[in-house]
């Protein structure tokens, strides 16, 4: 704003006189309050010839805006999206219907088809949404706790459906053929063993002799014993092919391709769901999404119907605004830091980060040792001599250590971050990133330990490619570890709900001692819960290759977890004072899920492409690595298809494809950047237009004032041209609209009240 120019000081200008002029502008017309379109009797319902139904019939809802609306109302723009009152909408609808009667019969038929198709879509949409799982439960949760927590439960529902689809795929393509061959419904051939004899020894794992009852329980919970050589694990799928009348169903190929297809399906579905949240982030600025405007205008959750929840929402908004003000203050403080302070802060952060790395290193080492101990114990100890509790604990030792690490490290991180002096929003994000890292890296460490055990043959290279003395069927062993992790995760969720949250609620509600006050009621922390289920889902993805039935187990597990969490939420929890925003949370959940998926792809990829498959069990007994089944399948294809696959797998094609993908990527990045630039330019233009408008209005006001003063000085009998035109009359309220000669016809009916 240029100083000294009173034209630009529109904020301080006379407000009374700028308003009426502004109200005459078309852009303000659309915001006039909803008035009935005239009294109805003078209105003509049929105005087929003139599109200007708005201005001819309106006494109040005036202006070119209705005209513009009608002009833009074509069948493409639905009536329901117009910002006019319901009775007006119905009139527009009737007007359209009458217009349609004048069209050709073919056109009418086509419009009729369109309308009934739209109806059909609406009805089917309604029917499908009635079939959606847990719709009413999630609605209730939304009403009581808001959309942040509701998004967690929607996410859980998404995982249940995803796991169910994966299970159905694996069941149909992998398990069902084996069942068919077991019950001899169709002709099938089993795999012939071709590897050297030593590698193919796979002793039966069913316990012999007198078996104590508790050993069956240990077996059921850890997948050993009677469960090991069943449909549950990789080792049982030793079929070669099933002979149907027309085709031959190759089992190894099906196993490999279905596992890869499951992972790809999960990837596409998750990306599809996350695209929506991502689109918003691309266009807008990153830092602004927690801005004040967002909190004021989009902060109140209109879905809340419960009084307690409303009260909590009020206090959480209050807390959020206070936090934002604090953050502004901290930003100011950071901007004014001295050099010495900056050095001090960075040194402190370095120290604390090294401490965190040390803690993480300790956790990972503990997991490593626990895994090795657990493996050695179950191999060296004779089966009969195992004590029940000790045996169970040792079997589950890796799971116990991982879960303990996952519980303790967030607490440590929360303490550490307070000393690192970041802004509050960054603190939350950084702690979450660290927690995600711990959760997923612990699975990685476990798998790395297993891998090192499997490929370690006492210092020399392994004869069979893996340690066949300890691990005759190593994929089954990995599958068992994943199975144990999944079961233990489920048991922990249930145990925490029953043994920690319910008693805490009882203590807090019935006992008024200071301990209860210090504890407080349980808060439903959305990020930690999401990390928990993403961790479980990563285990499911990894396990799906080694144990085709794990997705089914996960479906049942998450189904039950939904009800556990819901009951626990309703009974025990109060909404968090630091609520998680629904918009950013959707994107956050799916981003973490994608990271989990990528982490899951690594061990599966290494297994398929690098480690020798077991020679004693499983569908890949006759191949060196699992991936070899694909080239041998391609060999059997007819010439044309074979050539096609050779071309695709050649290096020339891969390089060309990579280059093309890079080009496409760069193009889209450049496009997004150009759009951002255009958006900025348009914003600046808007700013300038606004200032122009204000400038012109001020000039007009000045001109009117000058004219008024001049009129008062002149004798009454002389009339100026302007006065005759009715534009400016000294005695009238000058905001009476001018005559039709000066302004368009549409303003005639305009009435400023």
């Amino acid at each position, binding site marked *: *704003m240029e100083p000294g120019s009173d034209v630009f000081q*529109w*904020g301080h200008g006379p407000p009374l006189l700028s308003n009426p002029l502004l109200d005459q502008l078309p*852009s*303000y017309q*659309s*915001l*006039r*309050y*909803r008035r009935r379109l005239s009294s109805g009797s003078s209105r003509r319902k049929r105005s087929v010839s003139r599109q200007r139904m708005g201005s001819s019939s309106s006494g109040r809802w005036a202006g070119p805006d209705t005209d513009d609306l009608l002009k833009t109302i074509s069948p493409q723009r639905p*009536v*329901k*999206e117009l910002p006019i*009152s*319901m*009775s007006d*909408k*119905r009139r527009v*609808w009737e007007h359209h219907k009458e217009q349609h009667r004048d069209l050709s019969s073919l056109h009418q038929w086509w419009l009729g088809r369109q309308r009934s198709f739209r*109806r059909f879509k*609406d009805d089917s949409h*309604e029917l499908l949404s009635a079939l959606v799982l847990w719709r009413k439960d999630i*609605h209730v949760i939304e009403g009581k706790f808001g*959309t942040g927590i509701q998004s967690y439960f929607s996410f859980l529902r998404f995982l249940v459906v995803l796991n169910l689809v994966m299970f159905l795929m694996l069941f149909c393509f992998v398990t069902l053929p084996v069942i068919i061959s077991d019950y001899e419904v169709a002709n099938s051939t089993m795999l012939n063993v071709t590897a050297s004899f030593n590698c193919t020894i796979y002793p039966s794992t069913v316990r012999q002799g007198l078996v104590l009852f508790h050993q069956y329980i240990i077996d059921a919970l850890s997948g050993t014993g009677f469960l090991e050589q069943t449909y549950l694990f990789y080792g049982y799928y030793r079929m070669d092919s099933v002979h149907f009348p027309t085709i031959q169903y190759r089992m190894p190929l099906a196993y490999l391709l279905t596992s890869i297809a499951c992972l790809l399906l999960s990837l596409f579905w998750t990306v599809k769901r996350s695209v929506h949240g991502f689109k*918003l982030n691309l*266009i*807008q*600025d990153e830092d*602004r*999404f927690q*801005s*004040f*405007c*967002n909190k*004021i*205008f*989009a*902060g*109140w959750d*209109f*879905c*809340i*119907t*419960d*009084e307690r929840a*409303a009260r909590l929402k*009020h*206090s959480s908004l209050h807390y959020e*605004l*206070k936090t*934002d*003000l604090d953050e502004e203050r901290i930003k100011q403080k950071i901007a004014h830091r001295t050099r010495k302070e900056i050095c001090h802060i960075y040194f402190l952060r370095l120290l604390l980060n090294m401490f965190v790395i040390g803690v993480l290193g300790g956790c990972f080492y503990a997991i490593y040792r626990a895994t090795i101990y657990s493996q050695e114990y179950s191999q060296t100890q004779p089966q009969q001599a195992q004590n029940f509790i000790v045996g169970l604990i040792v079997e589950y030792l890796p799971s116990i250590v991982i879960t303990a690490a996952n519980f303790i490290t967030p607490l440590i991180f929360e303490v550490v971050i307070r000393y690192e002096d970041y802004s509050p929003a960054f603190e939350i994000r950084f702690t979450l990133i660290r927690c995600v890292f711990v959760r997923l890296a612990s699975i990685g460490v476990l798998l790395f330990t297993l891998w090192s055990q499997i490929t370690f043959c006492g210092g020399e290279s392994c004869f069979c490619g893996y340690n066949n003395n300890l691990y005759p069927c190593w994929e089954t062993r990995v599958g068992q570890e994943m199975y144990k992790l999944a079961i233990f995760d489920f048991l922990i969720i249930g145990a925490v709900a029953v043994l920690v949250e319910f008693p805490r609620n009882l203590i807090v509600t019935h006992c008024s001692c200071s301990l209860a006050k210090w504890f407080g009621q349980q808060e439903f922390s959305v990020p930690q819960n999401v990390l928990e289920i993403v961790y479980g889902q990563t285990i499911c993805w990894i396990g799906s290759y080694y144990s085709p039935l794990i997705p089914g187990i996960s479906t049942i597990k998450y189904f039950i977890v939904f009800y556990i969490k819901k009951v626990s939420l309703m009974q025990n929890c109060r909404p968090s004072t630091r609520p998680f*925003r*629904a918009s950013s949370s959707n994107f956050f959940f799916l981003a973490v899920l994608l990271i989990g998926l990528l982490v899951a792809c690594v061990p599966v990829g290494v297994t398929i492409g690098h480690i020798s498959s077991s020679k004693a069990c499983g569908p890949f007994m006759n191949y060196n690595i699992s991936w070899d089944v694909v080239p041998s399948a391609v060999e059997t294809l007819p010439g044309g298809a074979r050539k096609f696959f050779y071309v695709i797998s050649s290096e020339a094609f891969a390089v060309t494809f990579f280059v093309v993908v890079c080009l496409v990527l760069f193009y889209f990045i450049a496009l997004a950047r150009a759009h951002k630039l255009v958006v900025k330019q348009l*914003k600046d233009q808007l*700013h300038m*237009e*606004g*200032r122009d408008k*204000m400038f012109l209005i001020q000039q007009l006001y000045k001109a009117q004032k000058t004219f008024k003063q001049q009129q008062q000085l002149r004798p009454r009998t002389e009339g100026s041209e302007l006065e005759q035109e009715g534009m400016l009359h000294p005695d009238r309220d000058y905001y009476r609209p001018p005559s039709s000669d000066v302004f368009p016809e549409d303003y005639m009916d305009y009435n400023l009240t």
Partner: protein
Amino acid sequence: MGNKQTIFTDEQLDAYQDCTFFTRKEILRLHGRYHELAPNLVPMDYTNDPDVKLPLQLIINMPELKENPFKQRIVEAFSEDGQGNLSFNDFVDMFSVLSEMAPRELKAIYAFKIYDFNTDNFICKSDLEQTLNKLTRDELAAEEVNLVCEKAIEEADLDGDGKLAFTDFENMISRAPDFLSTFHIRI
């Protein structure tokens, strides 16, 4: 659907279905809700479009609106006389705009009307202060309210006049990621 209902004619239901984001079943259910607010005033037979309006007090006591701090403004924004008396048309329109299927632009227009307390087609600082006080139940200190309002106007105001016109508001709403998920009522 399958049952013969005598509340509306088929043509009326067609009109409602095309003019709102609801299906026939939902419109009939809405009529049921409207009727139970005042069973003596609202006729069951709407075939001849009776001119019945329910006062503000009845509407804002509905469970969906009861806890909303802006309930009065919402009902006023959708009423034809600006006083909050809703006919059935306005009632259906209100829930249609607030439903999940309504597009962002339409919701932005009505949100602007709701937050414009003094109905001068601008969201000025006093409107913002009133909004903020309703949101936090007057728990923020006066200078904090002042600071927050100034910051909000600073963020959203494009043409630099110190208050938010509809273009400013719409532009700001398009950048507010939570708007679509919070500005909806399920009925």
